């Protein structure tokens, strides 16, 4: 009797995720069918592409960036803090890391450590601004992080100008390249020609770190408790201001890692064409994965797979934007089904509660038993 409601709950949870995916797939199917393309052909091409050697590595590399971004926002989402500043944080961090890296003449592992650490510190500092504004001045984090994203864009474009940190012109305007010895040579996995970056493994480390910190430490407990109920957390002795600042700083430091695979593995310098938008994708991935380490991993792979198969679709004369639409629909479907299942769960719990109350053998049934109605 005790296990059945539990199993049923888990099954419903799983079912709701699947239902969301099916819904999104069905919607994409309809869209494709409406434009006269063959949905089956498209799906086949996407899957084939996804499992080809070259694109598998590309998918894994971009999944790593998506995952880092998702972990970064999850640190604050679990605290019920809507930090959407990851976009600005990772770009500032990548620029700082690129600038420091360009001037570095350290031997291999040490140099990379310095570059990655610089990125983490820069991201953390940029994230500390909204955290302090919130705890000291009560500034809403949604607005402050949006503003800081734009300020970051301005700051980066200012710093990249020749004579400051950058050189070159047009979209090539950027920092000097990092020495070859410090670049990410890539991992020679069994498949030939694959370019999985070493730095993509940062995502694995971040995921493990996130899981351990959130689920296994007192700090993580504080953070989750405050995310669930501010009042209960305060009564339970959680230092709220400190938790907010630490969570934001951790988020920023993780955000600092997002650009590392691209910087060390691909471009070697920060230019105006450095990948953008990764911070926003992270929000989508985190929402998809329910801010859990494992769920976000699935989400990162799924979104990366979808994004990278858009090229294949273009070859088939299908607009690659179908993928974006699908992603948006998946998110909407996931959040709605989550909401519905949580409502279902509370409704389930309610009759239990009442049954429990009246079934308690020692509870007398008379008029006034409950006292407080």
């Amino acid at each position, binding site marked *: *009797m*005790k296990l059945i409601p*539990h199993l049923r709950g888990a099954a419903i949870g799983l079912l709701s995720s699947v239902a969301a995916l099916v819904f999104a797939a069905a919607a994409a199917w309809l869209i494709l069918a409406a434009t006269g393309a063959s949905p089956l052909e498209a799906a086949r091409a996407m899957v084939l592409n996804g499992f080809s050697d070259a694109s598998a590595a590309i998918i894994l590399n971009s999944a790593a960036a998506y995952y880092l971004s998702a972990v970064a926002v999850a640190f604050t989402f679990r605290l019920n803090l809507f930090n959407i500043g990851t976009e600005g944080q990772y770009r500032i961090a990548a620029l700082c890391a690129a600038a420091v890296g360009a001037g570095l003449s350290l031997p291999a592992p040490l140099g990379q450590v310095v570059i990655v650490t610089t990125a983490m510190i820069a991201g953390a500092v940029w994230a500390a601004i909204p955290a302090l504004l919130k705890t000291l001045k009560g500034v809403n984090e949604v607005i402050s992080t949006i503003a800081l994203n734009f300020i970051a864009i301005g700051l980066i474009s200012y710093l990249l100008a020749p004579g400051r940190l950058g050189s070159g012109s047009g979209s090539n305007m950027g920092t000097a390249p990092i020495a070859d010895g410090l670049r990410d040579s890539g991992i020679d996995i069994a498949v030939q020609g694959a370019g999985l970056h070493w730095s993509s493994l940062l995502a694995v480390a971040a995921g493990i770190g996130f899981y351990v910190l959130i*689920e*296994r*430490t*007192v*700090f*993580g*407990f*504080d953070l*989750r*408790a405050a995310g*669930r*109920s501010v*009042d*209960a*957390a*305060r*009564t*339970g*002795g*959680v*230092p709220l201001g400190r938790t907010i600042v630490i969570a934001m700083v951790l988020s920023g430091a993780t955000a600092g890692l997002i650009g590392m695979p691209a910087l060390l593995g691909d471009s070697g310098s920060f230019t105006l064409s450095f990948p953008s938008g990764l911070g926003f994708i992270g929000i989508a991935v985190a929402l998809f994965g329910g801010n859990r380490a494992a769920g976000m991993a699935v989400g990162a792979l799924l979104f990366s797979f979808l994004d990278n198969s858009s090229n294949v679709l273009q070859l088939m004369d299908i607009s690659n934007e179908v993928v974006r639409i699908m992603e948006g629909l998946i998110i909407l479907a996931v959040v709605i089904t989550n909401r519905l299942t*949580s409502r279902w*769960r*509370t409704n389930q*719990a309610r009759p*239990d*509660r*009442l049954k*429990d*109350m*009246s079934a*308690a053998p*020692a*509870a*007398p049934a008379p*008029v*006034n*038993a*409950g*006292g*407080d*109605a």
Partner: protein
Amino acid sequence: MAVATSTDAVAALTAKNLRKQFPGVTANQDVSLTLRAGTIHAVVGENGAGKSTLMKLLYGIHRPDAGEIRVNGERTSFASPKDALAAGLGMVHQHFMLADNLSVLENVILGAEPRKAGSLDVPSAVRGIEAICADLGVRLDPHAPVGDLSVADRQRVEIVKVLYRGARILILDEPTAVLVPQEVDRLFANLTRLTDRGLSILFISHKLDEVLSIADDVTVIRRGVTVADSLPAGKVTARELAELMIGTELAASDPARSRDRSAARTSLRLENVSLGPVPGRQALHEVTLELREGEIVGIAGVEGNGQTELIECASGLRRPDSGRLTLFDRDITSMDTRRRRSAGVAVVAEDRHRQALLLDAPLWENRMLGWQTHSPNSEKGWLRRKSARRDTERLLRDYDVRAHTPDVVVSALSGGNQQKLIIGRELSHGPKVLLAAHPTRGVDIAAQQGIWQHIERAVSRGMSVLLISADLDELLTRSDRLLVMLRGRLVAEVDPREIDAARLGMAMAGAEVAAP
């Protein structure tokens, strides 16, 4: 005040044998009253006696399971407050239903807006409000934002609001609970002006002296049953009302404890603790009290007289503006909640769902809350999930929490089981002091006894308890000493063995307590 006292006159509002049952609880068993037109009728009863349920029945928020309601002699059945409003009933809630950021005028006219050519007819609304204010004898600036008003003015806005909708029968839910004495007098003057104009008022309260000074008739409810239906107020005394309210069951309850702890060490001491006024909160004035080891000190008081703030100061949730707190002579004034807990201060918070539980988290995580930095929950910052789970199983057994595994979500438990979990958690770390706010509120009798057994056992080992409760019976039988709190001050100390509930109730209401 007396308009039509003839018994033949049609009553403004009558309730006959109302009954309302909620799953597991019968809130109203058999409630009747008759509100004569043009009079003020008080409904009194202890907390939990069923007064609020009665009001919700009369105002259409709930529908009665049995019984009938008549307005002006006609039988009615309200599906919603909207119907009640249409029938001329208006309710002034204890917790105001106002939008603070909007103006008095906007709050008053919502849903009954005067229009002119599609837009709000502001001048006409202002005229209407001013006319009502004049009738009522109050002054309100129609354009002032409600958030800037005093509590008393907000209450006036609520009254104007229902009058603006043409209500002829007003239901006021504990209107004086939020007012200081001078404002109570002004409110009563306002109400009298209304009855002079033929309006009828139903007035819910548990402050007996006020009831006797304003009401024409009094109805007493005890445990969901009318024990006195519409007594003329002139013919009863406060003492008789108190006895009716509390009943004679007291005699049958446990004898008061007799423990003399005056020689024991002082554990928690508050010295001249004061707290400035914050909107919606009671200020504290120079509160001084001390708890000794192995002693239960009860705080008696009508809710909202500073008990919540007292617990907040003692637990470290709020820093007092002045004064000092010590625990075994160690200054803890500037310690935060976590450090106070580590020093041995456990808290049973007032609002179980909001302050004490993470409702969608499993039992074992809830068992950790507040003590997450302590063994067996964690060590050196690392959670010990296995041992925490195991300890939760122990707690479920020892405290008779009816749940099958520590992994059940806490919201799936009944209120009584949730409370037992909280008590077990707070007692599991050898606290020196327990700040217990309503430890058995909303819990069935069996669970109440279980909870008290556990607390008493810890007390016998030297723990001190600061007990806040709305249940006078509980205060009288459990406390070694009783302090009476009124408007943020400790105004009297009484011996629970020598005072009965009626006199305690009077003391809480601010009446002088005569020596026995």
